[in-house]
């Protein structure tokens, strides 16, 4: 099998419109959570989220930098975030000027969990109040999940595989894992892979609220709301944004002298086959997913220095994941660190696995692991595990494990190592 490495990164998050701003804020223990500004959420199950900030904010996102005004008007925010993150990644990799022959072998696998919910909501209201002749002609292709991959392929002329994963909150991790396999199996030499989400809208908050998934008890200080493994946790905080990486066949990357961030060495997938929203009570699906990824990597568990957990801050999910990680690592759990960056940027749903993979890569680059914010009173079963409370921690990071689990009982785990 051909080896696959990461040669470019792109991020749009509630803590920054690019990779370095986001990472600096993550390491500085900042939170992207605040009262929702997009609509008046006072009477909703929760009134806070981690929104991507406007361009004039200290760590805002300038959509106009890489996305045409016309496209911004036609498509949902998740597509705008995805196009920009993909643009950052391909620029970072130095691959914006590929020949036609190279572009036949370069593709996109950028997914999302939910897709264009804000646009579906608003155009449904247009249909109801003004009739079918007032629905936007761009309604369908401005909302479809595969339209990040579509838009990006058109913008950069990428004519290789054009794919988009939809596996709820595992979409971002599955996208990277699947794309890495496309390169390993010789379907492509270069893949833009990742995930995006932008579902902070009335129906999105109401829907997740009714599913009893959202945190709602921290209206006074939303920055305290996302608190994975803390005894006071009461659900996830919705985030938005995108993460995209450039994956590249190793020999090709080496030959052109590319900056190589990491190698994708392991990928595991499993299904809980248990319940649509609740995780398996023994965490067995999560465990098998991690086991497969580690086995494929050829690494020992003692080689894995950092785990970026799914860790959404829900009462049940955090405990079960930690239990599964404990069973997987055995005694090796004492030497690794595990944190949840959802404590800072919330849950980016279909974007989460991709954004968090980038944090893992940066942890290896800078030899520092990001913190779990708000972990004031860890649950009882947390003893003996370094969950990196409150502050980032400098340490050796040579290999990482990243978990994502989604509604429907879909699990994905990635293992990457430094080269």
């Amino acid at each position, binding site marked *: 099998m051909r080896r696959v490495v990461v040669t470019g990164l792109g991020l749009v998050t509630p803590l920054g419109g690019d990779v370095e701003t986001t990472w600096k804020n993550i390491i500085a223990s900042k939170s992207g959570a605040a009262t929702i500004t997009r609509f008046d959420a006072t009477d909703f199950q929760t009134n806070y989220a981690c929104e991507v900030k406007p361009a004039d904010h200290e760590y805002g996102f300038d959509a106009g930098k890489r996305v*045409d*005004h*016309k496209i911004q*008007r036609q498509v949902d925010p998740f597509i705008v975030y995805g196009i920009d993150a993909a643009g950052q990644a391909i620029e970072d990799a130095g691959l914006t000027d590929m020949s036609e022959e190279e572009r036949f072998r370069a593709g996109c696998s950028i997914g999302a969990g939910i897709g264009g919910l804000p646009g579906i909501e608003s155009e449904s209201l247009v249909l109801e109040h003004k009739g079918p*002749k*007032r629905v*936007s*002609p*761009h309604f369908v292709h401005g909302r479809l999940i595969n339209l990040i991959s579509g838009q990006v392929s058109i913008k950069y002329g990428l004519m290789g595989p054009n794919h988009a994963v939809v596996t709820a909150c595992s979409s971002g991790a599955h996208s990277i894992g699947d794309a890495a396999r496309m390169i390993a199996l010789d379907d492509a030499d270069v893949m833009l892979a990742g995930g995006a989400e932008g579902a902070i809208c009335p129906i999105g908050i109401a829907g997740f609220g009714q599913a009893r998934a959202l945190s709602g008890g921290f209206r006074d200080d939303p920055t305290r709301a996302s608190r994975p493994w803390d005894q006071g946790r009461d659900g996830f905080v919705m985030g938005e944004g995108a993460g995209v990486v450039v994956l590249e066949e190793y020999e090709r990357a080496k030959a052109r002298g590319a900056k190589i961030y990491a190698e994708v060495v392991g990928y595991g997938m499993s299904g809980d086959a248990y319940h649509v929203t609740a995780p398996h009570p023994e965490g067995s699906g999560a465990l098998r997913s991690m086991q497969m990824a580690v086995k494929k990597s050829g690494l020992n568990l003692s080689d894995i220095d950092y785990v970026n957990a799914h860790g959404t801050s829900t009462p049940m999910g955090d405990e079960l994941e930690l239990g599964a990680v404990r069973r997987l690592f055995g005694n090796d759990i004492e030497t690794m660190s595990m944190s949840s960056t959802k404590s800072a940027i919330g849950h980016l749903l279909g974007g989460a696995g991709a954004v968090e993979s980038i944090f893992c890569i940066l942890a290896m680059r800078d030899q520092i692991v990001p913190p779990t914010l708000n972990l004031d009173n860890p649950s009882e079963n947390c003893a003996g595990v370094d969950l990196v409370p409150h502050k980032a921690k400098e340490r050796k990071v040579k290999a990482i494990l990243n978990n994502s689990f989604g509604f429907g009982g879909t699990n994905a785990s990635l293992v990457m190592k430094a080269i």
Partner: protein
Amino acid sequence: MSETADRVRKIVVEHLGVEADKVTEDASFIDDLGADSLDIVELVMAFEEEFGVEIPDEAAEKITTVKDAINYIDEHQG
């Protein structure tokens, strides 16, 4: 320039994201202003909303320039 022309130009600038000075009366939506067929559907919808006129598909097909739009609206507005 007439009031209709002003309002038409504003809509075109907003929807197509083009510079205002490019939206001359002779400008073709597709050839000069970068629109595709769906953008024109959207523009026609916006004209209908703004001016309270109905532009049937067969008439919309004949609107290819800014001037075509202005003339149609001036002829059909209540």
